[in-house]
């Protein structure tokens, strides 16, 4: 039975989970990403992984780092945050007058581990100054086409995807109608699912009934989200209003998340406070709601789009792998 091939020998504990071939391919993809942005005149930047500020999101759990130094008063410590994305720092650069910028960096998200998640992962994040929603979607489509060679992305409105996939209008349907659609489509509903948690129902339907069909054959960019899921995107005052957020899907896997960026500091303050209230209700630690980003926005953030793309997932898909561990040298368990 044994033919002495490498697959028969267990991997020693120190060795990487990814093959040399996979990591060579990863290096090629890194160069291609840099080339894509360099050719378009984006400036590559690096910003801190450890910051006093952090993105405030109900479902992102940043990892705190406790610093004690001679400059702190005796017995006092200072908490800083490993960044869940370089968004705040990159927007501070834009507010300071920088042109379009990109960055390839590590990011950290607590508690996320699975076939498509590792708490430490690599993001490609870029900001295109002067660009609107359409330009943002076009650039993301071009990047996907260049790196994955599966053609340009089709656009699909969030609303249309739900109407096609589960026959409900995600903007108009009541929570009861969303719950009924979930049951009708055989979604396994968590015991603790609150009937009035509208975004919870939308997410359950999205994960089970919509996402698996996105990006088959050619990439899909899902766009124009419900305002309750705007995060840091601006809201377009249509009827009903939509958040100018867009996400890239390939083979049913979410690869990138982009915004036509919110510019108003006051609006961000309101959203931060609302999210912190939700975090407190969910028993999570609240996060610092004042930040240097707010100061930057008050001084003036230029109109722009910003996108974050999961580089590990991109490599995984382009390499034909089925889990991140095949393209990461040392995932969490052996990090």
């Amino acid at each position, binding site marked *: 039975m044994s033919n002495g091939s490498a697959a028969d020998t267990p991997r020693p504990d120190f060795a990487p989970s990814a093959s040399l071939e996979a990591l060579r391919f990863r290096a090629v993809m890194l160069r291609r990403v840099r080339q894509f942005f360099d050719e378009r005149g984006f400036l590559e930047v690096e910003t801190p992984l450890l910051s006093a500020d952090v993105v405030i*999101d*109900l*479902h*992102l759990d940043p990892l705190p780092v406790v610093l004690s130094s001679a400059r702190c008063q005796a017995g006092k410590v200072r908490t800083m945050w490993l960044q869940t994305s370089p968004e705040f720092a990159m927007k501070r650069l834009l507010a300071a007058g920088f042109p379009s910028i990109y960055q390839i960096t590590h990011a950290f998200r607590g*508690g*996320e*581990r*699975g*076939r*498509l*998640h590792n708490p430490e992962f690599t993001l490609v994040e870029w900001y295109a100054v002067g660009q609107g929603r359409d330009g943002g979607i076009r650039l993301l489509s071009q990047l996907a086409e260049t790196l994955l060679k599966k053609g340009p992305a089709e656009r699909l409105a969030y609303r249309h995807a739900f109407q096609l996939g589960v026959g409900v209008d995600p903007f108009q349907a009541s929570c009861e109608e969303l719950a009924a659609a979930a049951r009708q489509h055989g979604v*396994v*509903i*968590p*015991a*603790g*699912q609150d009937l009035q948690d509208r*975004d*919870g129902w*939308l*997410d*359950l339907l*999205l*994960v089970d009934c919509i*996402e698996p069909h996105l990006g088959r054959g050619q990439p899909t960019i899902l766009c124009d989200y419900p305002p309750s*899921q705007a*995060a840091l995107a601006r809201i377009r005052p249509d009827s009903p209003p939509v958040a100018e957020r867009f*996400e890239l899907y390939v083979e049913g896997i*979410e690869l990138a*998340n982009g915004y036509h960026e919110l510019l108003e500091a006051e609006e961000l303050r309101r959203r931060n406070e609302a999210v912190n209230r939700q975090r407190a209700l*969910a*028993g*999570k630690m609240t996060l610092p709601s004042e930040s240097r980003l707010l100061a930057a926005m008050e001084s003036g953030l230029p109109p722009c789009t910003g996108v974050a793309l999961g580089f590990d997932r991109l490599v995984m898909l382009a390499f034909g792998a089925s889990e991140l561990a095949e393209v990461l040298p040392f995932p969490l368990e052996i990090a």
Partner: protein
Amino acid sequence: MATYKTSDFRKGLKVQIDGEPYLMIEMNFVKPGKGNALYKCKLRNLLRGTVLDRTYKGGDSLESADVEEIDVQYLYRHADTFVFMDNKTFEQYELSSEQVDDNWKYLKEGMVCSMTLFNNNPIILSPPNHVELKVEYCEPGVKGDTATNVTKPVKVETGAEILCPSFINIGNIVKVDTRTGAYVERVSS
């Protein structure tokens, strides 16, 4: 009783749902866009073998199940009760014939089996995969016939009937697979 948070969820975890023990046989972490993490689990009921599909949200938790596996020796049968003894603690455990199920066919006094305890009560008995049983009665074998595809019922020392090839005779010892109940080979004649 310990609880497992969703961040502790993994394959192989033993948990309690509605008072019954389950083994987590599959766990998939999914997270929609900016949404709440979902933990999609398949759980096997250790009492009944049925499989449950459950989805948990980040922040949910499950009670751990006090499940352990021990080696026990089969002592004797008293009416509908089978009595076993933990070889280490000498503690005795009783299983009903319903819990023992078809496994009574393979139980010989002194045989070491594996037993699963839930809250210190026996729930599953697993005899060794193969047991050797002496033939007590059968129709006489056909001389010269060594074919294994012609079978006949054979009564073994435990009182069970096993289908064996026609060349098996009284006094032979046969090896039986306890997972399928099938004859494997003749050990001695």
